[in-house]
Structures are given as C-alpha cells and as structure tokens.
C-alpha cells in the first residue's frame, strides 16, 4: 500500500440534516476546512465537501453533503438521502424548535436511508451555553431512545466537531467489518476503492471477498 495522502480505501457519504440555521454548513466548513491546514495540500482540498480521515489504519474519504433545511423543501430533498452512509442530524441548542423537529427528521432519515446508515445527533452551538434552550440530558435521552450517537458541538470553536465525524466513520467502518453494510449496493453510501497502484496482486481477491460479503 502506498502511503500517499490521496490514496484511500473507502468513500463514505454523509449528509447533514436539520432545520435551517442550526449551523449545518458551519459544521461542514469547520470539519472540511481543517483538512486544508492538516492533511492534504491541494488537490483534495479543492474537492468539494470532502475530507480524508483515517480509521483503523484505513484512509477514508468523507464526502459530505449539506442539505437545505427549510420546511418547505422537506418534501423534495429526499434525493439527498440516497446512498448516505452517515447522517448527521443537527439541532441548535439555543432554539427549542429545531430540537422539536428532530423526530420528523429522524423519520425521514430512517425512511429514506438504508438500515445500516449511521445517524449521529449533534447539538450545535455549544459555545452559546448561556442561551441554551435544550439541555444535554434531554437530548441525550432522545438519542439513546432512538439508538443515536450524540454529542454537543460547536462549529464556531470546533469543539467536538472532529469527534462527531470521526465517530460516525468508525461506526460505519465497524458495520462494514461486521458485514452489515453491503458494499456492492449502490445505496450503501460506501464506495470501496481497491485502489493504490502498488498493491500486490494478491490483494484484489481479498478486496472482492470483502465486497461480496
């Protein structure tokens, strides 16, 4: 395996959902902008809404789609969900209404993605603790009830943003390893790249085994 920064084994597709103004785009920018400083010099950086991370020694390219959160677009934004391996569901801890809408978002997500899709609940704007309208415990309970991972984060400070994305990736990778995620399905949201030119010839069969499982 070559160790170039551009080689990656998987592509995970994420979507970020949530009401308008909860900071979906800011979370995305916070996450992807870091890559400019840290990981990849140019080409990948130019690429739209992506960042390469490493999970269990595997390089994974995250492809993150921002979505429109307006209520009136809810009906038509279903195509966003197609083939998402991870869904980051975002609410604003300073606005209760955004939290209240979570159940409908969750319903949409469950209906429109495949069962193996990992859903991660993010309470954004944790830096505005003074204006908090939704308590951590309340949200945590909601997450547990629905089997969601949960974290409070701040797109502004970057707190927990990285963790949210990484944890999601780990979970997805885990489900791949477990075989719960069918890599061959177009809707899986995961694209395996048998990649890297220098790989030994013995690798492809292994990769194919991986695919067929």
């Amino acid at each position, binding site marked *: 395996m070559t160790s170039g920064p551009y080689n990656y084994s998987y592509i995970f597709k994420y979507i970020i959902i949530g009401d308008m103004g909860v900071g979906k785009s800011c979370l*995305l920018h916070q996450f992807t902008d870091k890559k400019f400083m840290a990981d990849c010099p140019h080409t990948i950086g130019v690429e739209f*809404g992506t960042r390469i991370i490493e999970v269990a020694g595997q390089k994974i390219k995250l492809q993150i789609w921002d979505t429109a*959160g307006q209520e009136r677009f809810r009906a038509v934004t279903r*195509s966003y969900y197609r083939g998402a391996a991870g869904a980051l569901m975002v609410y604003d801890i300073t606005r209760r209404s955004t939290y209240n809408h979570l159940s409908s978002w969750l319903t949409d997500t469950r209906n429109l993605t495949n069962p193996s899709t990992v859903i991660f609940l993010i309470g954004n704007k944790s830096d505005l603790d003074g204006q908090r309208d939704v308590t951590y415990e309340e949200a945590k309970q909601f997450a547990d009830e629905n089997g969601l991972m949960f974290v409070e984060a701040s797109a502004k400070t970057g707190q927990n943003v990285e963790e949210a994305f990484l944890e999601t990736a780990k979970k997805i990778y885990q489900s791949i390893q477990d075989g719960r995620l069918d890599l061959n399905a*177009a809707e899986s949201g995961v*694209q395996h790249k048998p990649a890297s030119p220098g790989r030994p010839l013995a690798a492809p069969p292994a990769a194919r085994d991986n695919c067929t499982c």
Partner: protein
Amino acid sequence: MSFASKMPSLRIDQSDLKCKNGCDYFGNPQWQGYCSKCHREQMMRQRRAEKASTNPSATLPKPEQKKPERGLKLSSHSSFSKFEEKRLRQSETLKKANLLKFSVFKKSSSDDHDHTPEKRPPEFKIPAMVFEGMKHDFRARFPALAPQVDRDARVFVHSFIMDVIKCANVMTVDELSERVQRQYQRFMKHMDTSPHFGNVDSDTKELLLDFVEKHAMTYLHELPSVVFSPSGTDDERLDRAMSERIQQLSWVGERHLECKLDRNSAACRQLLYKAISELLGMDSAMSPGGKLARVRRCCRHVLALCGAPASADDLLPALIFTVLKANPPRLVSNINFVTRFCNAQRLMTGEGGYYFTNLCCAVSFIENLTAESLNMDKKEFDCYMAMPASIGGSAWAAALSLCGCAREAEEQLAAAQALLREARDVQAQAQAVHDNAATFEEQIVKKVQDVLSKTPLEIKPRRELPQFGKFKSSAKPLIDLEPSVVPKETNPEPSDQALAQTGTSVQQPLIDYKDPPIDHKETEAEQPRIDSRVPIALPAPPLTTKDQKEQQILTVDTSSTEPEKLNILGFEVIDRPSPKSPQNLDQNWDLKQTSSLELLTPSLLGFTPFDSRSIDELMTPDEFVSDHLAPGLSNINYDIDLSDFSGDNSLAEDAPKAKDPFSPDGIKKFDPFAPQPSTFAETLEKFNEFSLVDAKTNRPYDPFEIVHRNTDPFSAGLAVTLPQQTTDPFSPQQKEGTSILDDNNSPTAACLLPSPLLPQSSGKPA
C-alpha cells in the same frame, strides 16, 4: 390442346427440370425451380436479407433468427404504437445508414477489427468516427497510458453500445438503466482484473470510466429515443408540462423563495445570467458527464450568487429561482437521462452529484409548488397562477434581458474585435503579399536588367551606328540633332516595342540611357571625344550605362583580349571603318570590351584614343558611303556598308578568327544575350536557353545574312522583316536593338537615319 400445350413444356422440361441454379440436380416447382439444396440456400439468403432490411435495430436475440416480424411485434407492444415504433426505427436506420456512409470512408483498421469478430447486420455498425474520436480523445487525455488500455476502452464502448441498442427495444427504461449500470461496473471490474490496467491508479480508472461513459453515451444520445427521452416513457410530455409550468411560475420572485438576491446589483445579475446560460447549456451536452459538468458550473455561479458563506439553505432556493428564470429546454428528459445512465457512483458522490441532486430537488419543488410552499395565501397564489404568463416576473425578466443584452453586446464586441483582428491579419497578409509581389517584380526587373546588361552586345552595333552619326557630325552637331523632335519620336516606338517585349524594366533603362546617357555621353564622352576624339567614346556611352556588368564580364576576358582587341581595333579601324556595325556581334563585343577597359583603365584610354581616332575617322567616311548608297534610310546604308565591308574585308573575317578564343565567349555571350531579350518578353529563362542554342547556330551564320536582309528591310521596317525571317527571339532582340540604338547615343543617329537629310548633313561635314 392441353396436351399440345403441355408438349412444348414437356420438351423444355428436360433442360428446365434442372435446378435453376445450374447445378446438376433436378429442380422442383415447389422450390421455385431450385433443387432442394439450392432452394434452402436461397431461402436462407432471403431471410438474411429481410432481417437486414426490415429489422435492423432489432431486437430479440433468438426469435429474430426465425421470424423477424415477430420480433418487431414483441418489441413494439411495449411502446405506444406500431407506427410510432416503425417511424422511430426507420429514422434510426436512416440515421445509421447515413453514419454508415461516413464510416465507409473513414473505415479504419481498428474499426474493422472491432467489428469483424461480431457478426451483425451492417446497420448495426457503429460509425468509425466514434472510435476515431475516442482514439484522439484518449491520446489527448491519457497520453501516458498504454495503447492496450485504449483498445480495451474502445472494445468496451463498442460492446456497450451494441448491448444498449440491442436491449433498447426489449427492455423498459429502468431495466436498461440497470443494465447500463451493470456495464459500468463490469468495466470497472475489468479494469481491476485486467493486466492491461495493472499500473493504472484508481483515480485514472475513474477517469477512464468517465471517458468510456462519455463516448458511449454521446453516441447513444444521438440515437433517437434510445437513451434520451426513450420510447416508452413520457419524458417528452413531461418536458412540455414542465416548460409550461415554469412559464406559469414566471411571477415567482426571489422574495417568494426567500433567497438573498439583489436584482439591482449588476454583479448579481451577471452571476445569475451565467448560471442560467450554463443551465441552458445542459441540453446541448451529450454525455451524462457533460451535463453534470454544466450543472456543476451553474451551481457554482449560484453559490457565488448566494454570498460567501453559502450553505445548502441558500443554494437550493437560489437554484430554484435560477431554474424558474432559465426554463431550460427538455429539463425532465435531461434529468432522467442523467439519473438513468450516468454512472451511479458519480451521482452518489462528488460535487457534480451533489449539485445534480440539488437540481433534482429544485425541479421537484417546482413540480409540486403550491401556495403553501411559497408561504403565501392560496388565493393570491391562484391569482398569480391565473395570470397570463407574459405578465409575471417582468422586473426580473427585464433585468435578465438587460443582462442578456449586455452580455450579447459584450459578445458582439468581442466578436467584432476578433473580426477586426482578423481583418488586420488579412490586411497584413495582403500587404505581405503585395510586398512580395513588389519584391518579386523588382527581382524580375533586376534579373531582366542583369540579362539586359549581359546582352547589350547586340545593342552595341546599333550604338555604333549612332556613334557614327555622332562622330560624323562631331559632338556638337549631334547635340544639335538630338534636341530635334524627330529622335524623340522615334524613340518611343522602339521603347514601346521593348515594353511589349520586356516590360517596364526594359523601358526604364532605355529611357535612362536615352536621355541622361546621351547628355552625359554627349557632355562627358563627347568632350573627351572632341578633345582626343577617342573612338572609345563610341563604346563608352553604352558602357556608361551598362559599364559594370560589362566590366564584370569583360574584365576577365578583356584582360586577355585587350591587346588583341586593341590590335584588332587598330586593324579594323584601318581596314574597315564601317565594319564595326557589320561585324555586329563579335566586333561589337570587341569594341565594347576595349572601350570599357579603356574607359575603366586610364592607361588603356591613353593607348586607345589614337586607334579610336583613326576608327572614328574611318567610320565616318564609311557612313558617308553608306548614306550615299542608301540616301533614303541611314540604317540601310549602315547595314549595307557593314555587309559589304565584312564581305570585302578579309581582315574583318580574320579578326573574328583571330578572336576565336574570344569569339566563342563572345558568341556565347551574344547568344544568351540575344535570346534573353526575347525571353524577357516572356520572362522565362528557359526559353532563353533554348533560344540560345538556336541562336548560337543561327546567329553566327545568319546574323550576317540577316544583316544584309536587314539593310533592305530597314527601309520598310527592320523589326517586321527580321522577326519573320529569323526566329522569334531575334525579333525582340532586334527591336530592342533598334530601341537601344535609338536610346544610346545613336538615338540622334537613328533619328537622323529616318530623316536622311540629317545624317547626310552630318556625314558631309565629317
């Protein structure tokens, strides 16, 4: 009767019973007169022909072989009507046939190679252009990849297109789409496993897949109703419906969609306009990838429209607004085409996929747009919808049309500038051509002059003639004669002839010779003549004009020939005062050489003058004699004199012999010169050479004869008679000679000659 009627048939039967094919087996009427074997073959052939003609783009792999008609029905019943199906297929076959024609011309080995293994009806052939284009594109895009990869890609595209065409009529669109997706995966797998792609990295493989998709789909896109708004779907109807719907919604503004657009901002308008034009361009892109690229560019503009920290919350409404304002043609068909036949991975991930998804959302939103989705009152919404489409959105429409006009103006301006540049280029090129022509002309003129300068030999005898006149009259009388109008009149005629023959180039030198040389010669040369009465003066005038060239030629020759010539001159002068003219070529040369040398080298001048004096003296009397002989025409007299002298003077003949070593040179020079003028007229040197050869043979012998003849014709007209007698080249030469004669010092003489009185008078005093 029946028997009778049968009889002949029976008789014929013997031969006719045989198989129509001419094989030795007996035929059978049931088999249309063929034997069983031939009949079977015939049937096979017919079936194949039917298949090829009626069922080109079909269809069912197996039934097709037995009953093509059934295949037709089977395939058609899935679509609306048989007629429709047939029409489409016909147009398809027509198109293919047309493309085939091209392929016939462009048939490449690779194409053949691709096609031969799979035996398909000819209509199935994919035009070679597709693969030619692929080849070029591949080389341009993947110069580093092995040709094997290129071949594999082309093979795949071929099989892919074939597969799609074969399945298009049998499968529903969704099935076809699935099949296409599987094809993409197949190619991807092929790239992963094939050794050809061993050292191709994964990113390049993605690009290769896009490449393959692009070329296959670009071709398929052109086929009607195969992949783009395929038969069996109501994509076209939806297109129209969508277009009407968008028109109805033209009143929807940025306010309704709550997107932050500033109509008053020029930058905003520009961006919107760009986005719209990209969106409109989606229809003209052929491949799914191309359409995706258009959408991507469109959405980037839209993003820029939304402001710096753009999010999907802003993007989607703005995109909806853009679609509403753009009303792109065949929007549904395009979206469906991309959705169905673009590589699914491309749609699922990546920027293009993201934006395309947004576009899908926007279209979907527009389709389902209600008062609620615009957050407005239902009644108000209905009012808007009931409003004629032309009224709504006038503000934005105006702004955009303004923008469009501005853009158009810009484009026009750019086009105009481009045209201007082109015009300048053309002008510059025209100028270059003009200069080229000018230089060419100059070169030609120069060449002509060069040749003329090399050839003046002929001229000299004529010069001598004028010289005689001058000498006869002495410089002063000559001068007196020159001013007389007559010479000038005579001059133009020869000059005209010269013009006709050699063109302007000849003219100028002639003119130069005429006036200035005369003056100079008269003043400069004549003075010395007068002072020393150097015969050199005679050759000198021609030399002055053509000195240099003569010098070049002569210097070498003269160095060796000088003494001889001098001697000869001396002899000639003594023996033959007039022979100079009769000797024409050879002697003239000598004279020239000597004269030039003398003129050039002062020492020579010192020697020569004496001889020249004697020559002059001798000359003049001869001229007198000649004049006396033919009082009417001075020229005639000269010629006659010359001929006589040449004939009389053994010395004259001896002189050339003595010059023999020189004479060959001289002759050669003469020959070229003589022919050259003629060739100048034609501006072809080759002719000169030919003429030279001829001239060589002719001149040495003929010239004398000609001269004699000339003497006679001179009265009537030298130019006319000579050309008739001699070859063409001669005539120009003579003409030139005459002109030159006139031009050089002689003009006076020439002038004098036609007017017999003057020469006589001049001769008498001398």
